[in-house]
């Protein structure tokens, strides 16, 4: 994993929602410091001189309590614990409610090259936003060879061997008004241990597709802003397979197959490819069926149920 620095944090925050409007008021030299932990630490105990279990790789958040304590420290001769505090290579200190620490604190931070950030937001807002950003940074991810599209609001990851027609199926889906998320390489990130997000690997290749015979085409320019999106939760996997008459395929569909990716279960369907089998239409129908299941209606199961009821009624 790449190192995530304080500067990266500021960039991410300004780039996403910029709710915190974080500013760095001292210790700019240390903006390259790495944030080594997803955790966020409230340094009350450390300030009072108790350093057992001190998370020195984590962002130190100063709320009302910590700032008030710092004010009190000023009066007494307690530079020692502050010195010890800055003796650790802590990534940064963040102050809520636009609080500013006293001059001694700022001087020590400058000296040790620890950036001091401040925001007008409340402590809970600060902590929640930091957790949201760090949660994404420290989440597990894998890359998968496949194409991802959003069909009727369902994030569909299309996989299969090279040349089986993943991109072609996606292109037809885009023509039919659906959206491209990523082509060829999809980064799958596990969010909050419960959902998978699919994105492209980087901005350079975003919105582009590779179609055999055409080369690289720009979907954003060809089909407009409505035909692309940057990320989407993976809610269904479609595996394209070569036509094999020997293989028994699901005819009723009353049992669901799941695949576990990064600890998250995703429904998976297998489609056999054959000339004359319109894959995009089947993917569309599958996505629609998935929506229906989410709304509590399971076509295959209710079909079996209804049939049984009718039989009973006849007897």
């Amino acid at each position, binding site marked *: *994993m*790449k190192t995530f620095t304080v500067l990266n944090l500021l960039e991410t925050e300004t780039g996403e929602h910029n709710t915190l409007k974080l500013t760095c008021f001292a210790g700019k030299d240390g903006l390259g410091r790495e944030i080594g932990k997803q955790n966020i630490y409230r340094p009350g105990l450390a300030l009072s001189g108790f350093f057992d279990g001190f998370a020195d790789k984590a962002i130190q958040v100063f709320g009302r309590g910590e700032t008030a304590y710092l004010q009190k420290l000023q009066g007494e001769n307690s530079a020692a614990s502050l010195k010890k505090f800055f003796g650790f290579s802590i990534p940064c200190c963040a102050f809520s409610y636009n609080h500013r620490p006293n001059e001694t604190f700022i001087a020590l931070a400058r000296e040790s090259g620890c950036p001091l950030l401040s925001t007008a937001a409340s402590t809970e807002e600060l902590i929640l936003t930091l957790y949201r950003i760090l949660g994404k940074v420290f989440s597990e*991810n*894998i*890359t998968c*060879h496949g194409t991802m599209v959003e069909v009727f609001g369902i994030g569909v990851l299309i996989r299969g061997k*090279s*040349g089986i027609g993943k991109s072609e199926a996606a292109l037809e889906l885009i023509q039919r008004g659906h959206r491209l998320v990523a*082509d*060829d*390489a999809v*980064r799958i990130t596990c969010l909050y241990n419960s959902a998978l997000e699919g994105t*492209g*690997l*980087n901005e*350079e*290749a975003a919105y*582009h*597709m*590779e179609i055999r015979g055409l080369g*690289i085409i720009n979907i954003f320019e060809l089909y407009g802003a409505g035909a692309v999106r940057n990320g989407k939760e993976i809610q269904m996997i479609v595996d394209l397979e070569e036509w094999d008459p020997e293989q028994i395929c699901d005819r009723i569909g009353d049992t669901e197959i799941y695949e576990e990716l990064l600890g998250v279960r995703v429904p998976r369907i297998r489609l056999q490819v054959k000339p004359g089998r319109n894959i995009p239409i089947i993917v569309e129908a599958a996505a629609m069926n998935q929506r229906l299941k989410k709304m509590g209606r399971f076509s295959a199961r209710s079909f079996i149920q209804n049939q049984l009821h009718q039989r009973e009624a006849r007897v």
Partner: protein
Amino acid sequence: MISQQVVLSNRAGMHARPATLLVNKAGEFKSEIFFEKDRDRVSSKSVLGIIALGLSYDSTLKIIADGEDEQEALSALVELFENKFYED
């Protein structure tokens, strides 16, 4: 399965032309070939995938080959990197 680390020494980084050369060369072999950077792994059959790895000058890349002609495939691909894709 065999693999080898290579360093990209093209000033311009991995853009469409070298990526195409790489895909075409990899396509000449029967082996399954992958390219890996950090933890991202892409198929050798995909130009966009290779570009998406975002390889710039001096980046390290791992080539992984698996199959009957893996040795030949690997050395042919390494040769492309060594010759800077006949650029510069």
